[in-house]
């Protein structure tokens, strides 16, 4: 049944993506927010999304604001659960296992598996070291040698080790904006996730820091499944293997990045990437 | 899943702590009423409130003089405090510079921190002799209580009205200024009316404070069981009646003091609820 729906609704990515290899699969997934007060309008943030993301690939998600990109990411690690009026529909499958349908899913384990980097680099009010060790410690890892090693490798993988290795115990708030965001990436890496989701990670950064983050992402691709939500069309083109274009809560088009940017099928996609709106 | 069980347990514990304040309020209500109501019923509600005689030795308990006393003292305190507090809050909210505000505001709040017994003592040693020598009577009077209580509730009224004034959006001020008003005219005609219900709530809460105050009043009021007809008359309030006699009262007499407490409690709760109503309307 599910295969059937995919064939029908998502013809364009059938040819390339082997369904069984999909790391994350959105299966007729939708998100709505109930009104705050009785009588208010229900907000449909996402509707009927069918989309597969392969392992060791980067998917760029583009679209104008309020297109549902952020809701998409925050649904994968169930961060939307914090919103009291959130109602999901359909499901998301990670390695074939449903995120919403299963009643006894361990949400903290899910959030470790699908790490998230926010638009604004949010530094926990702790030292650099403790920022990175925060996730592993919560997962029950309290052995100093193992944490030391995790912290070092995470910082190295996020290309920020050289800049901070001599001041791991100083407050993370002392870092610059670009360093902070790479610290946030390292913080996610230290949890040994499968999936890394980034929500407009460079929107608050200068061009040099942005370039460094993009390099980092491309290097990380060999190990992780990466979903990059970006408001920067060029960034999507530079980094993504695939690109998905969202508009008003719907997936308009999803294909290889090169195809989306050279021969988009949908007129709205073309208008967006050429800067005619959004 | 062990984690989920623990989380659920913690949230139950927190809910229990959250119920502590309403639980305390319920306990207070239950115990005060349980102790006090029998005397009110025995005397008769009307006689208890409107009767003139309080003679514990003969088992006669009526509290009208004290109700009158409490309200007289409260009214006097408001006469002193409201204009004073309004001036302070308007000055702080609208005219004081940053440094002035940083000094004056905590100073006024500090007035609330001074123990009421200290106010009472200064009232006795300074104000009472002053009234006796310069104005008349024996000094222990409604007037003395009003002045001291007025100062004691000043911080309450000032800080709540201050918050109400600060909550008025700047567009009100700018709108008036753009029409050529001076700052003072803008404050007088736009800002203060806009903060009106907040200021009224502040005054109501101040009234509650004044009626509920005990230790300062007991030292300055003179505590005679008469209805005060002049500001120079001595007075006994509901609160001082309780505090004066609790030390030695027993049996029916003690219950009558709790009955006094019931009336006091009802008055205060009515004022508090009125104030929250007014604030809620302001928010809308």
């Amino acid at each position: 049944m599910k295969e059937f729906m995919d064939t029908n609704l998502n013809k364009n990515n059938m040819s390339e993506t082997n369904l069984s290899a999909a790391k994350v699969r959105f299966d007729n997934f939708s998100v709505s927010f109930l009104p705050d007060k009785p009588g208010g309008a229900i907000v449909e943030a996402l509707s009927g999304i069918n989309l597969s993301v392969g392992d060791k690939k980067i998917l760029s998600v583009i679209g104008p604001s309020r297109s549902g990109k952020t809701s998409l990411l925050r649904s994968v690690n169930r961060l939307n659960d914090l919103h009291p009026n959130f109602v999901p529909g359909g499901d998301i499958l990670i390695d074939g296992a449903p995120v919403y349908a299963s009643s006894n899913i361990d949400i903290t384990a899910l959030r470790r598996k699908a790490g998230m980097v926010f638009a604004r680099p949010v530094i926990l009010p702790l030292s650099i070291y403790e920022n990175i060790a925060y996730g592993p410690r919560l997962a029950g890892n309290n052995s100093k040698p193992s944490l030391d090693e995790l912290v070092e490798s995470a910082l190295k993988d996020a290309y920020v080790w050289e800049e901070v290795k001599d001041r791991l115990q100083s407050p993370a708030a002392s870092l610059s904006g670009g360093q902070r965001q790479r610290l946030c990436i390292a913080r996610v890496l230290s949890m040994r996730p499968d999936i890394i989701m980034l929500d407009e990670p460079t929107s608050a950064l200068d061009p040099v820091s942005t370039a460094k983050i993009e390099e980092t992402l491309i290097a990380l691709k060999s190990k992780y499944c990466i979903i990059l939500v970006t408001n920067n069309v060029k960034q999507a083109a530079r980094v993504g293997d695939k690109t998905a274009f969202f508009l008003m809560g719907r997936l308009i088009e999803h294909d290889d990045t090169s195809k989306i940017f050279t021969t988009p099928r949908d007129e709205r996609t073309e208008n967006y990437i050429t800067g005619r709106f959004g | 899943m062990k984690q989920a069980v623990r989380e659920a347990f913690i949230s139950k514990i927190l809910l229990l702590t959250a119920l502590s304040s309403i639980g305390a309020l319920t306990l207070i209500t239950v115990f005060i009423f349980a102790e006090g109501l029998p005397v009110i019923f025995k005397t008769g509600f009307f006689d208890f409130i409107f009767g003139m005689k309080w003679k514990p030795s003969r088992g006669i308990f009526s509290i009208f003089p004290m109700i009158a006393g409490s309200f007289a003292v409260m009214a006097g305190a408001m006469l002193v405090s409201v204009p004073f507090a309004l001036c302070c809050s308007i000055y702080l909210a609208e005219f004081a510079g940053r440094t002035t505000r940083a000094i004056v505001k905590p100073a006024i709040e500090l007035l609330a921190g001074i123990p009421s017994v200290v106010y009472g003592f200064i009232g006795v040693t300074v104000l009472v002799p002053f009234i006796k020598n310069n104005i008349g009577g024996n000094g222990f009077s409604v007037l003395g209580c009003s002045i001291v209580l007025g100062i004691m509730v000043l911080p309450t009224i000032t800080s709540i009205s201050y918050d109400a004034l600060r909550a008025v959006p700047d567009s009100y001020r700018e709108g008036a200024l753009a029409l050529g008003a001076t700052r003072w005219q803008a404050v007088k005609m736009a800002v203060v009316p806009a903060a009106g219900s907040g200021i009224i709530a502040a005054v109501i809460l101040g009234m509650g404070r004044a009626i509920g105050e005990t230790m300062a009043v007991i030292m300055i009021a003179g505590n005679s069981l008469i209805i005060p007809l002049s500001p120079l008359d001595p007075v006994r309030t509901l609160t001082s009646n309780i505090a004066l006699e609790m030390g030695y009262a027993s049996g029916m007499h003690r219950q009558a003091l709790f009955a006094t407490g019931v009336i006091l409690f009802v008055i205060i709760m009515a004022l508090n609820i009125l104030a929250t109503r007014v604030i809620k309307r302001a928010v809308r």
Partner: protein
Amino acid sequence: MNSRTEEKIAVNILRLAALSAIAVLLFVIIYVAYKGAGSLTMTFIFENPRDMGREGGIFSAIVSTFYLAALSSMIATPLGVGTAIYLCEYTTESAVTKIVRFGSDCLAGVPSIIFGLFGFVLFVIYLKLGWCLLSGALTMTFMILPTIIRTSEEAIKSVSYELREASYSLGATRWQTITKIVLPQAVPGIITGVILGVGRSISETAAVIFTAGSALATPESILESGRTLAVHFYIIAREGISMERAFATALVLIIFILLINIITYALMNKFIAGKKT
């Protein structure tokens, strides 16, 4: 009168009111200091009162005050902070939060003499604790609870939502997020509330005298009666036992209150400054 002159006069009246408020404060402090400083010696602080307070010092009263303040804040802090956490982190606006807020608001308005009556009948009589520091502290707990709830709530609310999200996204549970991220950030604000509560315990008389009693001896346990500074001051001042000693005791009280206000003010400023970075 033209509007400029009117403004000038009005502002000067307002300024005069504010200055008078400060003048009143200064008068209270200076008057008590002037009358009390002469008797305020080291021996006065460290000696026990003798002959009903006519002779000797106030040491036992300081000890009782300390017990009462410490005990009541130890009980009220977990309750108040727990309430604040529940209101801010575990629930959205609902019937329960309305009831909780109503309870806390009303409790804040209950006059101290009512607390005194209540503490007397519940703790002293009904629970048979008698006049003792524990009865007094339990009564004060209810009195300072609203202050601690309000300040803790403000402190917890001021912690940014982003920090919570970041913590959740790293696999933290709600409780882990609260204990590891939110509470450490909110601590200065919470401490402010607790210190304000201590201030109220120190200066309270009506609620304490009917629950903790007024025994002059140094209490050896919380189940014994004790006379706090404020109660001691009230008794020796009202009964005219010793004016010099009354003023000196008042001065000690005021010094405590001043210290408490200075500490909370400094903490508050530090807290606000910390939030800005």
